[in-house]
């Protein structure tokens, strides 16, 4: 006997994501979800971004990692509240689900915030599949990873609202063509803004910070 089910998998996750989205809309809180492979520079980008934005916004951070609190220790030094999520000490979840974010937002406390940053687990595949109630998904790619990554992991680059191309200070040491990175990102997502920058030296950082400010202000003052 065949039983028709026709039910979306991850509908539970999507429902919680919608709850979060609704709650953040009411509270006028802007939330971004920063995703990339491990080692692309998410934490350094955030350290610099937070120090540039913290006088204009009340920021809180949620950091997802499989284990260790190294990222949250680094980000705590910026002076903003940080909640660390460890998905499992030995080989845990490869992404943050909406239920985990919901709990972390409670722990973070939203009353004094208007800007939440989520640093997702380093992974170019899985986090792309999970809505977590964010306003913008931002993908980071760094030059040493190679220009083929957008083509190999299209979903991540397709769902993102903006892309950061990090570590451009390394271009002179690598046998690469930086324009190819941008070309391949736009092949997947033609209208996406791409910010080519070096979080280490600060080159190109203004455009990214200005764009982010504009997005945040639009939501907060809505």
């Amino acid at each position, binding site marked *: *006997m065949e*039983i028709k089910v026709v039910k*979306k998998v991850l509908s539970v996750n999507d429902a919680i994501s919608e709850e979060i989205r609704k709650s953040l809309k009411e509270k006028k809180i802007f939330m971004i979800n920063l995703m990339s492979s491990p080692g692309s520079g998410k934490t350094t980008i955030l350290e610099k971004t937070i120090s540039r934005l913290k006088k204009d916004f009340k920021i809180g951070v949620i950091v997802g990692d499989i284990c260790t609190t190294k990222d949250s220790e680094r980000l705590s030094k910026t002076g903003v509240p940080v909640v660390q999520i460890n998905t499992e000490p030995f080989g845990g979840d*490869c992404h943050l689900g909406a239920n985990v974010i919901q709990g972390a937002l409670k722990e973070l406390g939203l009353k004094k915030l208007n800007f939440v940053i989520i640093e997702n687990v380093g992974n170019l595949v*899985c986090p792309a*599949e999970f809505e977590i109630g964010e306003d913008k998904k931002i993908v980071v790619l760094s030059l040493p990873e190679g220009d083929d990554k*957008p*083509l190999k992991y299209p979903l991540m680059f*397709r769902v993102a609202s903006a892309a950061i191309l990090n570590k451009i200070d390394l271009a002179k040491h690598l046998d690469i063509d930086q324009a190819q990175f941008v070309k391949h990102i736009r*092949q997947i997502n033609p209208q996406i803004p791409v910010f080519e920058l070096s979080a280490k030296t600060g080159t190109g950082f203004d455009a990214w910070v200005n764009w982010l400010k504009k997005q945040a202000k639009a939501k907060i003052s809505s």
Partner: protein
Amino acid sequence: MHEMAIAMDVLKIIKEALPPGPPVKIKKIRLKVGRLTAVVPESFKFCMEIITKDSPAEGAEVIIENVPLIVECEDCGAQSELNEALFVCPKCESVKLKIISGRDLFIESIEVEENETEEPVYGDQGRKKSSKR
């Protein structure tokens, strides 16, 4: 790697879809998975195998139907199937594309084992019980 999370979700949904009454055995699980999803069929099937142990779906065959990536051009209106990671309208080369299908991830149906001692019954559940020998 998140295939395990998805498999757990699938098991939960199919358990809820089972008819009330005595336990049944699930023989087949049919899913539709879009091209533009981050699901690896082999990993997913492996996770299903593990997660369904000691459940009504233990040993069930997992059948995955792939859903093509279809886009609609917002400029020329053409619908096209994309077979490579190049989001450009094959007809007019516009980049304004809306995804029509390919992000799908849903359970279509399950097949449960028939009780062999029963005759096939059409409609009336009451008769089925009274006709039991």
